[in-house]
């Protein structure tokens, strides 16, 4: 049922003279451009973009969309990514002109409704984290990490402390060390112990006078809550350093435990994970951060604050914290994503959010209880919102890798789990079902995994078989990069 033309590139569909967007004639005088502009500034011809009709464009992009798996179409148990259902009411409400068509340089007085939502969101994030200072500015989780590290740096600088090292966990996401490096810190890695938790001895060994921040993911990327958290808290603060919490896994602990209560001084949220903001094929996200009160003066600005006017009516204003690090991007923040988070939190309320996490934990443990009979799960039979299995045994027995398994899962109509992350597990298969999947779906997924392990090796090695393409040659792609169309070879159409 595939439309053969859909595999062509925009540029191959182009025909000179074809037009989609056309204009009525000008309602003002037409200026003489030659006279107005320096001829050096003007291009003789416009950029050589493709020329298409509106119908071309629609059919092309609608066609391409059907080549993606997505939460709307498939179970998407991609560990660490929290691919939960993206509520349609969020899309509708956030797209209202009064939210979506507001210019970032409008005066606060013209957008009190919007600022009210953003103010409430700040308060909500503070309450959920137990950390009172909030900045909504960062554009994604990694950006939040970076921003928080800038805040930490400014804080230590304000105290005259020269702490240049950031510790990251070996199970941490790559953004942690990358952010630390970008923020101007040196990085050291803290090992995991046999239980997949922080190796306390290694932590102790690496903590020192020069330690600025320990970046912790908790629950960590193995889906485990670090039960040594009080010790960690004690050790890090004892050393005069701060604890940063990578909040990518907040979906496990909403209303159950709060980063501020278990020792974190700074953290980011990924509203595009925890609070159902859609991932958009890779973005946009947002990365609001929360910090302890003594760090709040260093947050980037602006922040929404509330005053009372003469009639006792609340007025919302934008203010910049006293010792602000400045800003980490233009304008306020990823408001479209933040509004979706706000709507989501309003939909659930406090009890509801706790129930979200409970169901996420229930679903993951249920799936774990099935998968452990199929694959090894090195870190025990309890987890929080996700778990990491390993295909090592499979690999030894039949030569099938985590990658093979993942590819074959696609044939069963499921997105694959995350594979080869975290790095601390060999042949890692990281499964996060989320709370918005039914027991039937979890059963079907476990059943698929089981069947795959029973299938012939060749079948699995050569998977996927039912997708638009078979496995791509990644090596060739990187060795001889073709990063844009020039006249890349055309597809020929045979059904």
């Amino acid at each position, binding site marked *: 049922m595939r439309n053969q033309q859909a595999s062509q590139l925009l540029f191959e569909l182009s025909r000179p003279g074809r037009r989609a967007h056309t*204009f009525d004639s000008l309602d003002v005088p037409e200026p003489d451009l030659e006279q107005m502009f320096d001829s050096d500034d003007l291009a003789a011809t416009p950029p050589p973009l493709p020329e298409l009709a509106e119908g071309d464009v*629609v059919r092309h*992009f609608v066609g391409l969309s059907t080549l*993606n798996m997505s939460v709307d179409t498939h179970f998407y148990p991609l560990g660490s990514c929290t691919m939960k259902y993206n509520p349609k009411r969020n899309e509708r409400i956030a797209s209202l002109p009064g939210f979506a068509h507001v210019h970032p340089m409008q005066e606060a007085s013209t957008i009190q409704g919007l600022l009210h939502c953003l103010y409430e969101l700040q308060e909500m994030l503070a309450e959920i984290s137990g950390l009172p200072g909030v900045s909504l500015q960062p554009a994604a989780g990694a950006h939040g990490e970076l921003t928080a590290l800038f805040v930490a740096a400014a804080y230590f600088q304000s105290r005259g402390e020269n702490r240049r090292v950031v510790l990251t966990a070996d199970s941490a996401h*790559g953004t*942690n060390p990358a952010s630390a490096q970008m923020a101007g810190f040196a990085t050291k890695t803290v090992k995991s112990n046999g239980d997949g938790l922080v190796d306390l001895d290694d932590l102790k060994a690496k903590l020192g006078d020069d330690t600025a921040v320990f970046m912790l993911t908790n629950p960590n990327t193995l889906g485990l809550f670090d039960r040594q958290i009080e010790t960690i808290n004690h050790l890090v603060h004892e050393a005069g350093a701060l604890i940063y919490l990578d909040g990518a896994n907040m979906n496990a602990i909403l209303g159950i435990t709060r980063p501020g209560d278990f020792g974190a001084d700074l953290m980011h949220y990924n509203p595009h994970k925890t609070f159902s903001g859609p991932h958009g094929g890779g973005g946009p*996200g947002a990365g609001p951060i929360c910090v302890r009160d003594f760090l709040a003066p260093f947050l980037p600005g602006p922040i929404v604050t509330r005053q009372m006017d003469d009639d006792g009516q609340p007025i919302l204003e934008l203010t910049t914290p006293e010792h602000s690090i400045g800003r980490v991007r233009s304008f306020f923040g990823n408001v479209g994503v933040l509004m979706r988070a706000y709507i989501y939190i309003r939909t659930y309320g*406090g009890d509801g959010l706790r129930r979200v996490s409970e169901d996420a934990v229930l679903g993951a443990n249920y799936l774990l209880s099935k998968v452990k009979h199929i694959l090894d799960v090195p870190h025990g039979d309890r987890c929080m919102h996700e778990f990491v299995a390993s295909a090592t045994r499979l690999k030894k027995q039949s030569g099938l890798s985590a990658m093979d398994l993942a590819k074959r899962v696609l044939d069963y109509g499921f997105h694959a789990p995350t594979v080869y992350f975290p790095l601390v597990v060999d042949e890692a298969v990281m499964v996060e079902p989320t709370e918005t999947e039914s027991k039937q779906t979890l059963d079907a997924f476990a059943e698929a995994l089981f069947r795959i392990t029973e299938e012939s090796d060749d079948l699995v090695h050569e998977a996927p078989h039912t997708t638009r393409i078979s496995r*791509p040659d990644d090596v060739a792609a990187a060795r001889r990069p073709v990063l844009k169309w020039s006249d890349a070879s055309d597809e020929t159409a045979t059904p």
Partner: protein
Amino acid sequence: MSYLFHTEEDRAEMLGSIGAESVQQLLDAQVPASVQLKRPLKLPAATDEINLTRELTQSAATNASTSSHVCFLGGGAYDHFIPAVVDEIASRGEYYTSYTPYQAEVSQGNLQVMFEYETLITQLTGLGVSNASLYDGGSAATEAVLMSLAIKRDRSKVITSDVVHPHYRETLAAYLHNVDVELVVVPSDDDGLSTPMIDAIDEQTACVLIQHPNYVGRLESVASIAAAAKEAGALTIESFDPISLGRLKRPGDLGVDIAVAEGQCLGNPLAYGGPYLGIMACREDLVRRLPGRIAGQTTDRRGKRCWVLTLQTREQHIRRDKATSNICSNQTLLALRSSVYLSLLGPHGLRETADQCIAKLSYAKECFEACERFEVLHPGAAVKEFVVRDLSADVGGLMDHASQSGVLAGINLDPLVGDSTSSLPDRYQHCFLVAVTEQRTRSEIQSLVRTLESAPALASPPT
């Protein structure tokens, strides 16, 4: 409850399979009691779709927007028209509810879109290679500087000008604060041009960052600056306006090494500042230092053309602290929107859009010039923005007056004037920045000027 699935029966069966009494038992086994929250979260009560929709629809209606007001605000974000096709495509679940294309076989849609986007950006900029997006114009400009510093490892000076977007400079300053780099902000000349920057370029300079047209709408001598930089062994970064390239020369044709832009104008809603689109393209030979994801072409096992994420050794998930950037989530959905937008416009539509901006801006300038009260600061060529001075009123009050009449008249530049690295020079006191897009009509422009003219003047004008 809202989006949850499990019935009581499901729960019981699931707990049975796990071998646990309750979810609480599962939690207790992992989360020390001492750190568990013993009370409910203090959040507004759960609200159903009907009530939330009503409440927030009413709240939205209280905000001024480009739907309720006529918008002449710019400064890096513009009220260009968004064709209906863009919204229709971007609201397909297969696009907006998918993740980063880690499994290429079931992500060919997103990957081809990324590849097409990259191609469109190279066509737009005249540069050899583009990444698949960064966060926004400001952080893209900053990433370009970091990239230049990484390429020119032995150099530690970054030069920019005081008519580059204040937010971009503020961002740059924040990023550079903890590293050993000198950020030099060269004052512009009286014409609002950054040409004096040329004299500041030296052997220590890693890169120069210019904006063209610049924050006050002036066309910079990009080619001369780039030539001077090249001469000194430095890289040139141009922050461009995508729409302007319908008429202006492309960065790649001006000798620019890295081009960055805010891509909001290419079919993305204003949304009070985000999510926007950071565009970044560079010379082909610099690709291994380019931050952000890149999609490339390859073949599958059957020899079929297909697309994958490539050159991933630049990225954090492979290289961790050696990566070219920490970026992970990017702005793919906005890149999609911009690809649809550019496909609809094509070369002629882009040119026509730029030309309509120029014509309408020229008309608006004339209207202001015809008005005694106002001074148009920089006469001459401009694409969609210009600065107006009004000595007879407090600019903030003037803008308020206009917005009460349904016109978002311009950006008050007074709060941006000062002497930090991110300030505008004193010349822009008592000024506002007016942006005119292809959407504005003759009568809207007339009513803008009329509305401002009718605003009460100060008793004694400022000095």
